[in-house]
């Protein structure tokens, strides 16, 4: 994939046909060589770029597993026949499919294959002298000539001053001398930097995908702690391909409080969580007593050495205390799930096993679950709903269930609900339904008391680890710099031929000066610079002939339109 701006000397898409000769080995070699040439040609790069764009599109139009599993499930329900077919080609995880990888890897190979010869060519050109002055400068797109005062040597001295900073060479020619100058090599430098950095960017991303991980965990904002010691501590964990969950950096987080500010219409203004943390070094050094303070908020993650901790979400955890008739007491506090993200109406299930019962079967049958809805700002009335996300008038509409929760079944169950099959089978029975505000207590039929103590907030934290991130950033900046250079610098050539032109009537030497200019880039607009050089050398009134057609034109080179 060569870059757009400068056309390489030999168009790669039209390689010279290798001589056809019989012989298996040679044929294979020729085939390989042609395949390589084909792959590294600009046309192939163009096709691959199109494929890449086309292949990415479904990633935006179809639900993706990496973003939202529920939407994918929904799609399967909505399109029962189409979805499995799409799934077969990986349409729900486009960016992890082998064929997507194939496209960008081919593109990278094409890029490297195109860059290598280009870089060599570039180095060669850097060492060579600027190309000799063409015999017929009138054929250049920019051309001017005239007779000026001064001997050729004086004129040449002026030329040298004008093209200071250009790469230039002077040559003796029959009857005079010429200067060839060129400028704008940075364009090619930028071009190379851009493409090489793209490869570097991809390498950085790959490192992140291999060795990075992402874990989410909910922590109560009442001084509860979370330690990054194993993936078991997380509610969900997405490891990189080479991450097995061991050897995590063992830092610890303690969430002291959470606060949300809202506008009167319920729109959140800011979320902040006050926390203490211990870095992995602290923990390894055995210093578990001191906590460093930090405030976590949206857009302001906690940046540790290798990990970053983000505040993703928040919610409420109502606290209930159950007092059994025998005086045994248990307090439960677990996160309830927000079901409405604007009012934070939440639902959940706080589960209790009856303590102090030796018999397994009896203990199992006398578990209690408190399920229902929690409104941070209750609407009041019989049917509780939430009208505001902040904790202004909390109320819980609960069902108290008693019986077998199925906690000992060995099967996992949702922390947000009770096992419906137990309700259906009659093993779990509703024994009360009540709307409660904090501090309120109800007594069940058997004398068990259930009290709604208070509400605690919880925060959802994400821990991210991406060792390739800095590499990606550095190369992204280089990509930008390279792009800027390669699109803004103009590569151009300028030639001057000076021959003696006799003497003026006063006997002073005169010279005939011929100028030629050629922009070697896609970007037009060399004309102004050429016009300036021409005016400096030949004077403002000097006539120009406009290149190939030789048609007379106004004083400027019209072809350069809008520079």
């Amino acid at each position: 994939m060569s870059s757009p701006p400068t056309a390489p000397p030999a168009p790669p898409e039209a390689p010279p046909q290798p001589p056809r000769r019989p012989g298996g080995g040679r044929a294979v070699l020729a085939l390989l060589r042609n395949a390589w040439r084909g792959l590294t040609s600009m046309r192939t790069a163009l096709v691959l770029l199109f494929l890449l764009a086309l292949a990415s599109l479904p990633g935006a139009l179809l639900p993706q597993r990496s973003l939202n599993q529920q939407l994918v499930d929904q799609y399967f329900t909505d399109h029962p026949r189409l979805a499995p077919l799409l799934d077969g080609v990986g349409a729900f995880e486009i960016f992890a499919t082998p064929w997507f990888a194939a496209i960008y890897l081919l593109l990278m190979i094409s890029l490297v294959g195109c860059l290598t010869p280009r870089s060599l060519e570039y180095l060669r050109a850097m060492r060579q002298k600027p190309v000799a002055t063409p015999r017929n400068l009138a054929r250049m797109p920019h051309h001017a000539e005239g007779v000026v005062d001064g001997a050729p040597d004086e004129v040449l001295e002026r030329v040298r001053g004008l093209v200071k900073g250009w790469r230039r060479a002077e040559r003796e020619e029959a009857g005079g001398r010429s200067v060839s100058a060129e400028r704008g090599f940075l364009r090619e430098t930028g071009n190379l930097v851009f493409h090489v950095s793209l490869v570097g960017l991809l390498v950085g991303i790959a490192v992140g995908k291999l060795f990075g991980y992402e874990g989410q965990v909910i922590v109560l904002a009442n001084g509860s702690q979370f330690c990054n010691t194993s993936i078991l501590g997380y509610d969900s964990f997405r490891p990189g391909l080479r991450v097995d969950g061991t050897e995590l950096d063992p830092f610890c987080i303690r969430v002291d409080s959470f606060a949300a500010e809202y506008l009167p219409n319920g729109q959140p203004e800011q979320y902040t969580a006050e926390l203490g943390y211990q870095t992995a070094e602290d923990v390894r050094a055995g210093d578990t007593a001191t906590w460093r303070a930090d405030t976590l908020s949206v857009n302001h993650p906690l940046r540790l050495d290798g990990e970053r901790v983000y505040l993703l979400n928040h919610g409420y955890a109502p606290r209930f205390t159950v007092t059994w008739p025998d005086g045994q007491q248990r307090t439960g506090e677990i996160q309830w799930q927000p079901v409405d993200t604007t009012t934070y109406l939440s639902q959940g299930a706080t589960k209790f096993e009856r303590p102090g019962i030796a018999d397994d079967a009896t203990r199992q049958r006398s578990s209690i679950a408190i399920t229902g809805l929690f409104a941070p700002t209750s609407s009041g009335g019989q049917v509780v709903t939430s009208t505001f996300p902040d904790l202004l008038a909390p109320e819980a509409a609960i069902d108290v269930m008693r019986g077998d929760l199925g906690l000992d079944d060995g099967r996992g169950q949702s922390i947000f609900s009770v096992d419906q099959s137990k309700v259906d089978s009659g093993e779990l029975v509703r024994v009360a339904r009540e709307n409660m505000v904090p501090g309120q207590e109800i007594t069940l039929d058997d004398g068990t008391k259930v009290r709604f103590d208070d509400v605690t907030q919880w925060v959802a934290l994400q821990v991210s680890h991406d060792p390739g991130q800095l590499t990606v950033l550095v190369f992204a900046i280089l990509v930008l710099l390279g792009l800027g250079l390669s699109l803004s610098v103009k590569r151009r050539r300028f030639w001057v031929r000076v021959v003696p032109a006799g003497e003026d009537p006063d006997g002073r030497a005169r010279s005939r000066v011929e100028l030629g200019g050629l922009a070697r880039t896609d970007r037009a607009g060399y004309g102004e610079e050429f016009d300036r050089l021409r005016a400096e050398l030949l004077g403002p009134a000097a006539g120009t002939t406009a290149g190939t057609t030789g048609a007379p034109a106004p004083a400027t080179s019209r072809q350069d339109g809008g520079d």
Partner: protein
Amino acid sequence: MPVDPMLSEYSDLLFKGALTVYVLAMVFHAVEYVSSRTRGAVPEKVAHEPAAVGARGTGSADLGVVGEENADVPPPPVSARKAGRSRADRFGRMGVSLTILAVLLHLGSIVLRGLATERWPLGNMYEFTSAICLAAMVAWLVVLQRTAKRTRGLRKLGVFVLAPVLILMFLAGTVLYAQAAPVVPALRSYWLVVHVTTVTLASGLFVVPGVASILYLMKRSGKPAGFTAKLPEADVLDRLAYRVTVVAFPMYTFAVIAGAIWAEAAWGRFWGWDPKETVAFVAWVIYAAYLHARATAGWRHVGAAWINILGLAAIIFNLFFINMVVAGLHSYAGLG
């Protein structure tokens, strides 16, 4: 954070004022276009690469060279230019003046929105669609100003730049309109200023080459003849498209990188193939393909123009469809 209803009201008024003046400007440019002198009535010569210019010069896509092919269209006779301004010229000048006035009103509208809400005024679809239109119009005025001396005949294209901008502004003022209000916590970051401003500017800039490429294709096809005859030379349009694209593309690249840096701070990863990110990537790849096409034999002219149009389509698709239809992290359109 309170919203100043007075300032917000004035902002809306200025927006309507700008819209009205843009409509007027478009009418003036339309008159200019219709009454402008037909150029190149002779079937246009197909621009082809010049014969080898020097040993190394071949293949270098110097547009100056291509433009040379049309140098035989005679410049307007001096007498005609001196004999008072033609109707086209008068209307064109007034069109430009009106556009400048509208741009000032438009800018005022956006500034007042920012003052009313005490935040950077790029927080919802209405606001950044409006800003994209402003960017497109400013880009257009800059193009006019920079080409005024050398390339005549660009000015009457005003009508074609104004038309899509007016459609966008109309949509912004009706379907997308959102009351002035503060933004959600995720948007409270100075990266909003960096990322959204640059992406808005780049999107606005991309409108100009998109329009130029469409006109270029029409000019090349020569149909409908009466319409295309009045267009500037094909290579002028092509060059306009290229030169604005090479400004917009690095800006767009910067905007995407800035977005990635912000995403790292806000969402925990710099790139996550969120629908908006995906289509931004697609658009970037299309514009990269455009630049490559311009150096690929057989794709240099018509192919490249089509790709540029496709790029603008991707940008617009990303602005509307992704924000309004697809659910993603970028769904802060302030709609429904």
